[in-house]
């Protein structure tokens, strides 16, 4: 199949109609920072491209009493500069800032990052740690699904050809709660994560961990929650000993998951420093 048409959509309705009409012969293109490469490498060969990069309807960051919602076409530059997301959600900002280079961040979108479903997608661990939901629309209607369920595997997400992701939504951090992020890339810009980690933490006045959600990237076939590690922390004070126990557990998990890979030794060693730094930063941020 060769590319016949590119539709530059102005409204969501237009997109839903096009997707409905062309189904699996169509491909959404947002920032295009993954799609263009896949086209060139002939990994995909859609008949029509539906360009949603100008779709202002799904380019927004919204704040309500207890929720924050980010439109799928919001770029990483917008996320990095958002006044809504700073402070308690610093982890989200840091992950957006760590993507590629300024040029990439100006084009690349949060929706594209999630739907491309790379194991190293930088925005995925923070959103998993936030227990975010994905909002999806098609001509037939709307649905919502936990990101953790939406991500199915390397390059695979739970979406039908007629559907589009319109937004991502999650609960706002409450008092003494915060989101942190850490990434190991091999250089300071344009570095694909070798390891990324995100921690959502809720601490009480005694420094005891009320709630914690940990998600890592680039250490499995998709970004994933580390529930076994979370269990180590819950109900305990964040002492040096507890942190070290958590790190030991994390290493065990990675060791199993990465067994047989050439990167296993490096990643199970290096995760300690990245995780610990992110955890301590998050804990500090909870108190502020």
């Amino acid at each position: 199949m060769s590319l016949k048409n590119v539709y530059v959509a102005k409204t969501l309705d237009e997109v839903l109609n096009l997707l409905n009409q062309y189904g699996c012969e169509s491909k959404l293109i947002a920032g295009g920072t993954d799609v263009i490469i896949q086209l060139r490498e002939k990994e995909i060969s859609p008949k029509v491209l539906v360009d949603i990069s100008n779709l202002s309807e799904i380019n927004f960051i919204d704040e309500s009493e207890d929720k924050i919602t980010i439109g799928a076409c919001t770029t990483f530059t917008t996320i990095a500069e958002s006044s809504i997301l700073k402070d308690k959600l610093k982890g989200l900002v840091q992950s957006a800032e760590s993507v590629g280079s300024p040029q990439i961040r100006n084009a690349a979108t949060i929706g594209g990052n999630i739907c491309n479903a790379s194991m190293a997608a930088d925005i995925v661990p923070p959103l998993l740690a936030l227990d975010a939901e994905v909002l999806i629309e098609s001509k037939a209607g709307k649905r919502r699904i936990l990101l953790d369920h939406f991500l199915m595997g390397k390059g695979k997400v739970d979406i039908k050809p007629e559907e589009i992701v319109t937004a991502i939504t999650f609960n706002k951090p409450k008092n003494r709660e915060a989101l942190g992020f850490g990434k190991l890339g091999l250089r300071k810009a344009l570095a694909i994560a070798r390891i990324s980690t995100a921690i959502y933490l809720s601490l009480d006045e005694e420094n005891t961990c009320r709630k914690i959600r940990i998600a890592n990237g680039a250490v499995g076939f998709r970004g994933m929650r580390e529930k076994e590690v979370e269990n180590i922390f819950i109900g305990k004070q964040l002492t040096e000993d507890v942190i070290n126990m958590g790190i030991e557990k994390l290493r065990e998990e990675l060791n199993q998951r990465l067994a047989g890979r050439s990167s296993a030794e490096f990643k199970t060693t290096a995760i300690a420093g990245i995780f610990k730094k992110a955890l301590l930063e998050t804990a500090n941020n909870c108190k502020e």
Partner: protein
Amino acid sequence: MKKKGVGIGSTFYGTGYGNGFPDVSRAKAVLKEDGKVAVHVGATEVGQGSKTIMSQMAAEVMSIPLNDIIFICEDTKNMPDSGTAAASRQTYNTGNAIKLACEDLRKKVIENAFKELKLNSSVGLTLKNGEIYLKTLPSKNISLKELALCLLKNKELPLIGEGSFTAQTIEMDEETGQGAPYWPYTFNVYGVIVEVDTETGLIDIIKAVCAQDVGKAINPEMIEGQMDGGFAMGLGYSIYEDLGLKEGKMKNKNFTNYLIPTALDVPELEKFIIEDPESTGPFGAKGIGEPVMLGVAPAVLNAIYDAVGVRITQVPVTPDRLLRALKEERRE
């Protein structure tokens, strides 16, 4: 834990083909009808700035503005061979050939001028700021432009100067190891401060200093540019650029995996140009193209040793290699 270390890497490098191999550069300098001088030379501009500095050299000998030099290179129909833009040899070798060609043209210009000026000889005639004049009586003068017009009328153009320079090197005796395989040598030293993260294996270059012997700086700003570029390349070689050779095959065949430093990875480089004119060099200049990158890796590896006490003997020092080396060290 983050650990700091300081390292120095010092190198000396013989420029040119060396070891007795004929290293020849040729050049032609031609007086044009409008008094401008065309330099025909086989030096290839590969971004190192040869066009600029070689034009400067010609302008200096001919004592005319840089804009009056027409530099013709990279067209084999119109130029003599000046060898490759390799071995950091163009400034020294081809610079010398251009200097010789321009000196030859300058002599011919003066000889023609004394005839035009109807003097007894060329003694005391000099060429300065585009004018040929008698030092003892400057009102006896003719500009290059006027001279060119006269020569044109007399059908004596083009006036051509030629130069050829062969570097002096002597093959090493295989038995004794004696000889003089290179001349000249260029000296360089780098100092770096690194910060090694012992938990992730990441290396951060915090500060870097380069002192570069240049003989004589023909164009100081361009030498600084070469130092910045050489440092970035040397840095890539030290800690990033990994072909991933496996049984002779490259694993990292694209810039996703073969990492070169980005602007954020290259710290400010403090630069010192050391001038000690080389007596056989054009205006004392020597080549610095390759020398500016050689000292980086030894300096970085020494700094890593200073920081964490581990001698790494393989580049690039990627985080996984460094962590492995640290682990082995702990085991011993």
